């Protein structure tokens, strides 16, 4: 094999690698009975009942300031906080749901992606998408702690507990992890149950999407009866004038969609949502990976070819001893 052939082969390999189209998969579809939540930022009053309930249900300690237990001081998702309410504030920040000089609340928790990046990148399947409910679950027994899930999550949700020498990943599992199993027992998530205004609404992804679209279609100012708790069988309603919604349901399409969807009166980039295309990064990554490593065919062919070439060249150099010989055998002398 001369250099030309090698370069040709390399270029061929590169072409396969670049095309990506042949083996690329589309975004995953939502799980058949996907459950999720709808967070309506305009309904959120910032009471943090969901944060409190989440800690109670998941048995997590409050985040302390300077070690003093006066208040749960969670500022962001962390190994002790699977759900947190954050504040968008501009200027004076005294008008709710207003971009300029206003403020708005935003819930941060696992979005339970339809095509989860964390599941796609985890080398040891410690993160799995439940085949029926679509809940993204974590399995500590498999985890090696490489934190690729954190890098592969568009929302930076999985958090590793660095302060524990035997730490693990923490993320919201929709209150359905072993020992809690609220969904399996017919209950709803803690945060949706605690929410006093229905800002966090539990339900099937389909029903929630319908509800979100219904709200989008409302005329601002009209009163609407906002369901609270479970969208399928609301415990009560919250009557309120419709705000001026952004016509954008976060999670309907972003990176393949999410089971936890957000709607708001403030653009989502202000609320810290990432710039995501509709195509999931997981699908692109897997497409490239499966193009190159489908049944290990390409590597196997390459190995056979390389073995042949190497052996031929070794023989030609009469290599009797080790990886030997500096007697150049061809072309220009040294």
């Amino acid at each position, binding site marked *: 094999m001369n250099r030309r052939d090698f370069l040709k082969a390399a270029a061929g390999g590169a072409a396969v690698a670049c095309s990506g189209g042949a083996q690329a998969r589309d975004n995953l579809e939502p799980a058949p009975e996907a459950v999720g939540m709808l967070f309506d930022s305009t309904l959120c*009053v*910032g*009471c*943090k*009942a*969901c*944060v*409190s*309930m989440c800690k109670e249900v998941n048995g997590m300690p409050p*985040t302390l300031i300077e070690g003093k237990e006066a*208040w*749960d001081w*969670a*500022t*962001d998702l*962390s190994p002790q906080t699977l759900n*947190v*309410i*954050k*504040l*968008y*504030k501009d200027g004076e*920040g*005294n008008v*709710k749901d207003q971009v300029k000089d206003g*403020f708005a*609340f*935003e819930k941060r928790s696992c979005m339970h992606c339809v095509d989860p990046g964390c599941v796609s990148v985890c080398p040891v399947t410690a993160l799995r998408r439940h085949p029926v409910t679509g809940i993204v679950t974590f399995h500590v027994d498999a985890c090696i702690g490489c934190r690729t899930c954190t890098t592969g999550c568009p929302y930076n949700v999985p958090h590793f507990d660095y302060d524990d020498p035997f730490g693990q990943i923490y993320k919201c599992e929709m209150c359905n992890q072993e020992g809690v199993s609220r969904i399996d027992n017919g209950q709803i998530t803690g945060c949706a149950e*605690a929410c*006093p*205004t229905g800002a966090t609404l539990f339900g099937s992804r389909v029903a929630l999407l319908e509800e979100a679209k219904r709200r989008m279609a409302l005329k601002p100012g009209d009163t609407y009866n906002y369901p609270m708790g479970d969208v399928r069988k609301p415990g009560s309603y*919250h*009557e*309120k004038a419709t705000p001026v919604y952004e016509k954008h349901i976060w999670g309907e399409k972003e990176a393949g969609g999410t089971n936890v969807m957000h709607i708001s009166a403030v653009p989502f980039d*202000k*609320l*810290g949502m990432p710039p995501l295309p509709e195509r999931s990064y997981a699908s692109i990554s897997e497409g490239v990976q499966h193009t190159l490593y489908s049944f290990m065919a390409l590597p196997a062919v390459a190995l056979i070819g390389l073995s042949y070439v190497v052996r031929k060249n070794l023989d030609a150099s009469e290599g009797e001893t080790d990886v030997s010989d500096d007697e150049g055998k061809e072309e220009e002398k040294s």
Partner: protein
Amino acid sequence: MSGPDFSYLEKRLGVSRRTFLKFCTGVAATMGLPTSAAYAMAEAVATKRKKPVVIWLHGQECTGPSESLLRSEHPTLDRLILEMISLEYHQTLDAGAGHDVEHHKDVMIEQNKGEYLLVVEGSVPVAQDGIFCKIGNKTMLEHTTAAAEHAAAIIAFGSCASWGGVQSAAPNPTQAVGAQAVLPGKTVVNIPGCPPNPYNFLATVMHFLTFGSLPALDTQNRPKFAYGRLIHENCERRPHFDAGRFAETFGDEGHRLGWCLYKLGCKGPETYANCPAVEFNDIGGGTWPIGVGHPCFGCVEQGVGFTKPLFSLAEVKTHTPPNAFPTIDQREESPTATAATAGVIGAAVGAAVGATAMAARKVHENDNASGSNQ
């Protein structure tokens, strides 16, 4: 400082100097004024011999504000107020009745033009020229306009007088409105509440008497000292709200434990009043609606009290304290470079570059040497 002559006051009111100063200090504190202001008030009350004339009108109402004021404090308070000011006209308190008192009112207004204080209690119906409320064959509308004409200051006491109160709730057949609505161009100090807190009224009057001016007012002409902050901001149950602990129904565990009443329809988060700070009836111990377990219904707030359903959720008007929420870009930790770390990196890169430069020089020398060898 010799101070005012309290002996006259002690005789007139039958209170000790000490009790009187205590009262004035309390009033000053209600407004957030320093002790020196309390002393000024005491001086104003004790020395001013010419008592200001007060005309007190009643429109559509239940006399709640007067009741509240009357039984507000220690037994000496009402006496103090009645002695301190010259209450020339008050339909429920006047001993006389009929044309006599009406005539007296007119005379007093005439004699004290520009000096008397007008207090309005109750709403003013304006439908059909105000025929729904008549006193002495004159409508409330006429009474109010006439009395306001030459008043030094006008105080609307109670929600009815401030913005219409319960009468103004839909469908409002009498078209009841507050005093301000029928007195365009006049400054009406609104002290809403159902009933209003007597101290807010007393403090305003004291301020007027002492300083000759009205206290700072908000956009709805309510004294800022009393209506500047949300009930939600000073509520003793606020920590439960922030921690997400709510009473779900009356009498449940959360309710009994004193948790937040927001889910029961408490309007504290959209009602501006100092109820949690001043409370009612001077018996302490959290004696005010939320303190005793009933959700605030927003009596002082136009568009809330008598308007919003009792058990509907309130709009939360504020997010204070402002540092209780992490902002969108706030993270658990955000490490930055330190001198040590930057130094190590600089040293590592510097070592690589330096070694390369040195090696390069030697390679060059070597090359030259071997070149000359050949």
